């Protein structure tokens, strides 16, 4: 059997005021064989965009600040438009190890999955684990690390994540994962190592109000669309009966 052509791979990093972390993150990424690195500047007030441009990567500048998911989706839409076969999304705060990208991409390249989540359950606080447990119970999703932004998407999955219904999500977790399931995507997890954040502040769990907002929004998606978690995966090239 002829070897299939190598995957065209892009890495997307949504970034909001990450000028301090970005230099090192991009330097480490530069050692990984990827076709394009895309930093989506979510209207940062610091030198995030300048630092990214100086590193020679693609920079997309959002005209307004919308949050991590909208910035990530912008990168996914860009990658889809430019014909990439696989996109890895990762945080720009140094938490995700670029060396783990190969482990995430392998199942996509072999056709075993459409979405691979880089999971690191051991990093989670008790508060976060409680939220995961609750959302798993509510939504029916059997995913250990629900909030990990370190993911690889196949082209089919990129099309779903970049689609119109995904535009109004505020987070990339329960709502997006249920949408991917509904469209028949195979979602698996791969254990990866994660470092502590440089500045120690979570975006989602930065305050009790943010936690409450996240739980409320995710609960609405989880409860209203829980049936989607039971949709069987659909292999590429097949249609649902």
């Amino acid at each position: 059997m002829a070897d299939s052509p190598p995957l065209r791979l892009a890495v997307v990093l949504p970034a909001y005021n990450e000028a301090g972390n970005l230099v090192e993150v991009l330097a480490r990424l530069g050692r990984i064989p990827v076709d394009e690195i895309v930093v989506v500047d979510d209207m940062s007030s610091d030198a995030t965009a300048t630092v990214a441009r100086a590193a020679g990567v693609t920079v997309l500048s959002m005209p307004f600040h919308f949050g991590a998911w909208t910035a990530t989706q912008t990168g996914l839409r860009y990658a889809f438009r430019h014909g990439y076969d696989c996109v890895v999304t990762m945080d720009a705060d140094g938490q995700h190890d670029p060396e783990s990208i190969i482990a995430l991409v392998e199942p996509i390249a072999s056709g075993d999955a459409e979405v691979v989540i880089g999971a690191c359950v051991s990093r989670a606080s008790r508060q976060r684990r409680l939220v995961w447990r609750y959302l798993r119970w509510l939504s029916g999703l059997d995913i250990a690390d629900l909030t990990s932004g370190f993911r690889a998407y196949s082209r089919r999955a990129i099309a779903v994540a970049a689609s119109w219904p995904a535009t109004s999500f505020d987070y990339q977790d329960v709502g997006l994962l249920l949408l991917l399931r509904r469209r028949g995507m195979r979602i698996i997890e791969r254990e990866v190592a994660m470092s502590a954040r440089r500045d120690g502040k979570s975006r989602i769990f930065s305050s009790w109000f943010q936690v409450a907002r996240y739980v409320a929004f995710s609960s609405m998606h989880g409860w209203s669309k829980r049936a989607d978690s039971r949709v069987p995966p659909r292999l590429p090239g097949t249609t649902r009966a």
Partner: protein
Amino acid sequence: MTGLNLLRVVLALLGLGIGFLMVYLVRRERLHGNYAAWWISVSTCVIVFGMFPRVIDWIGALLGVRYPPILLVVVALLLVLVKLLTNDLDRTRHKRKLRYLAQRIAILEHDLKRTRRD
């Protein structure tokens, strides 16, 4: 003029005032389509029920409502709730479109800069 007749005249003038204001706003392109139709309907109802309050008594009797004026209050509240809901549905749609436009701008700006460089 008795108190009741004065009230009728005031309500009729109020209704007419709202109606003329809506027509003015539509002419100046400040109020559009469905929203203008809603407010013109509101002004029509204010005129009709203000000038002919017996209509509420008649409708109340037809529906078996013991105290007909409360029917107007209940219906008005329900319509306000419906209006609030449709406003939020509109805003959700607009929010989605705004995000999509912002994303397209970011991508197109980058592609344009790249084309100019090449």
